[in-house]
């Protein structure tokens, strides 16, 4: 079988490798180029031994870089068998990779200007989940590139034909449609958590006022703000000398950037919701949204890894929620966030149904939109249906406070000193708040373990729910600190193909149970995840 032999890159690819080697050692090369430039006026290197040594010193790294490029080229080989794509590569760090053909998601053949000049092609082979492209076969001849692509696709299609879900894809029909009115979007925008938008703006204002108070200017007007921003005035100390305001200015510019970006994010989020349309089809969810930038997302149902829905303090009272489909591959694509704002909890079973048919969410009687009491009843019904939850250990409160929240609040206190002295005194309330924050966090963290899925409910001001099917778990990690080892506790990290869920300070037995059951369910599941 000639197809089962190792293949190497086409000859011109050696230039690509050298250029990429130069790129990865760019800093070293720049340094030596700078050295050579400094010595440029002393023309002859053969007159003095010193200069000759220096020349060698400059040239050797260049040789090394070129050699490393050539070696990378020489060491690269790949092979495509019936089941695997195998790649051996690397000079200093050697790698042997084998990717099952079934797991390959896409094959792209590309050519940029460099490749076009050399008349070769770049083949990108991609699997799911990783943030960057899995394998780049950089530099093969045209016919070989397309042959490779062709072969992977034929091998893959043989697999796909036997997949019943793909065969059923022909009969697509719209099951459920959902659109947002402009009134709803306005309500959604107003109830957005504006704290992170206003806080930097207010702090910027305070800081500008403080800088103004430190100058000897008497009148305050708007033109003055800009002059203050650019530091046109000298600050005066108590003794009448010049005060050092460098740190204040650094903070000021950070706050300005913060206010700018947080308001930009806010407006983007809101504008992105206009013309919102969701169509649930037999095997996929289609979301279209956006006023200025249009986003269109198609999520095959089986690619949904887990679902999370959340709400903040105000929205909780009004019964406004946001649901997010976390699906495999969403990490990579910008703006592909699958967000569904909804204004009626009764929609929840419908929205979760593509992931799993849940039966704990029963619509309460007369549960109208915004009917506060009905909503509360409804919220309670989740708890009453699911029974007693597992909770995180109370030692989380003190432990997390000492090792995480206290250093954080110290940093915040120190920073606020440079914003305004009054804010400095005020900021001593931050650690006090964090204590209550941790108490509420520990009290509100609920985990329900059910035969088919796991539900997590958490939140201090707002609430966030997760629903994860056991078989969607990719990897389970138990992480234990010395204290947790002494008191039989554990942190648990649930890794899915979309993102990770962190559960702190649960009893070790529960963690082990979750781990064992999760592994058991994963090992028993026979459906494709992607």
């Amino acid at each position, binding site marked *: 079988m000639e197809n089962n032999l190792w293949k190497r890159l086409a000859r011109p690819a050696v230039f690509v490798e050298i250029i990429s080697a130069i790129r990865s050692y760019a800093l070293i090369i720049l340094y030596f180029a700078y050295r050579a430039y400094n010595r440029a006026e002393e023309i002859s290197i053969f007159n003095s031994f010193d200069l000759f040594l220096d020349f060698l010193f400059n040239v050797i790294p260049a040789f090394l870089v070129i050699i490393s490029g050539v070696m990378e080229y020489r060491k690269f080989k790949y092979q495509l068998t019936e*089941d*695997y794509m195998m790649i051996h590569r*690397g000079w*200093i*760090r*050697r*790698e*042997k*990779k*084998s*990717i*099952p053909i*079934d*797991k390959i998601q896409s094959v792209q053949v590309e050519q940029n200007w460099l490749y076009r000049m050399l008349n070769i092609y770049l083949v990108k082979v991609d*699997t*799911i*989940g*990783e943030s960057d492209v*899995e394998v780049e076969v950089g530099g093969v001849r045209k016919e070989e590139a397309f042959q490779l692509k062709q072969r992977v696709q034929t091998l893959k299609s043989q*697999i796909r034909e*036997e*997949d019943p879900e793909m065969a059923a894809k022909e009969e697509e029909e719209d099951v459920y449609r959902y659109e947002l009115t402009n009134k709803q979007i306005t309500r959604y925008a107003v109830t957005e958590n504006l704290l992170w938008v206003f806080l930097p703006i207010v702090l910027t204002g305070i800081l500008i006022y403080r800088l103004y108070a430190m100058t000897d200017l008497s009148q305050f007007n708007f033109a003055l703000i800009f002059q203050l921003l650019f530091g046109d005035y000298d600050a005066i100390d108590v003794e009448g000398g010049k005060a050092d305001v460098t740190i204040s200015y650094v903070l000021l510019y950070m706050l300005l950037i913060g206010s700018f970006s947080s308001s930009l994010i806010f407006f983007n989020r809101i504008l992105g919701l206009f013309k919102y349309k969701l169509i649930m089809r037999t095997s996929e969810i289609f979301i279209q949204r956006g006023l200025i930038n249009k986003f269109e997302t198609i999520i095959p149902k089986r690619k949904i890894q887990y679902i999370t829905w959340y709400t903040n303090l105000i929205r909780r009272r009004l019964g406004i929620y946001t649901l997010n489909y976390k699906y*495999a591959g969403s990490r990579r694509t910008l703006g592909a966030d699958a967000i569904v704002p909804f204004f009626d909890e009764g929609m929840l079973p419908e929205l979760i149904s593509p992931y799993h048919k849940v039966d704990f969410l029963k619509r309460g009687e007369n549960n109208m939109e915004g009917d506060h009491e009905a909503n509360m009843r409804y919220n309670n019904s989740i708890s009453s249906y699911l*029974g007693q939850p597992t909770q995180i250990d109370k030692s989380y409160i003190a432990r997390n406070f000492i090792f995480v929240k206290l250093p954080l609040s110290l940093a915040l206190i120190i920073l606020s000193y440079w914003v305004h002295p009054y804010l400095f005194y005020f900021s001593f309330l931050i650690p006090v708040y964090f204590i209550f924050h941790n108490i509420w966090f520990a009290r509100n963290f609920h985990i329900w*373990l*059910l*035969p088919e899925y796991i539900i997590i409910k958490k939140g201090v001001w707002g609430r966030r729910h997760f629903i994860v099917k056991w078989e969607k*778990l*990719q*990897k*389970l*990690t*138990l*992480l*234990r*600190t*010395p204290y947790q*080892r002494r008191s039989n506790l554990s942190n648990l990290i649930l*890794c*899915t*193909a979309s*993102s*990770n869920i962190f559960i702190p300070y649960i009893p*070790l037995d529960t963690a*082990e*149970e979750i*781990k*064992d*059951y999760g*592994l*058991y369910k*994963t*090992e*028993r*599941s*026979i*459906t*494709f*995840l*992607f």
Partner: protein
Amino acid sequence: MIEQPSFSNRWVDPESLPRAGAEDFTPVESEYLYVRLTSVLIFFIVGGVLVALFVLLSSMTFLWKTVITGGFLLLILLWGIYVWLEFRQRGYAVREQDVSYRRGLIFRTRQYLPFRRIQHCKISESMLERLFNFATIVVSAAGDDIVINGLRPEVAQSLQTMINDKVDQLNKEMKNGE
């Protein structure tokens, strides 16, 4: 709450067992410790030269020079001890259905990755590892990896083959609907 599965794959907590009997995790090759210590040594030499240059050329008081040198030595020593102690915690286990790895001294982690979720598996050998005849195996799932250092190349090779076969078999099983 959880239905009792017919299939059992229970762990015994390795820490509750006497050390001699803790056979759940295979410790990595004991000689791999020298690879770990060599990287500390390399850092010590490179860093030591830099610190020596800095101390000799700067115009600080003798006390400060002593403090800096002593601090550097202490740091290296502590690091070496940490590497040594942490090394004893390292171990991997391949069971019928999953791969697991244990590491960490202060923050002890145990990672579990079922075969059914493995995307691919690669062997990587750095220069230092090749010098000591070792290899690293990286088992990747869609979300996260398990990196097992300190295997002999032939063990890594057979482990890779074994994982590949297993993944392939599971894939076929999934395709044919069991």
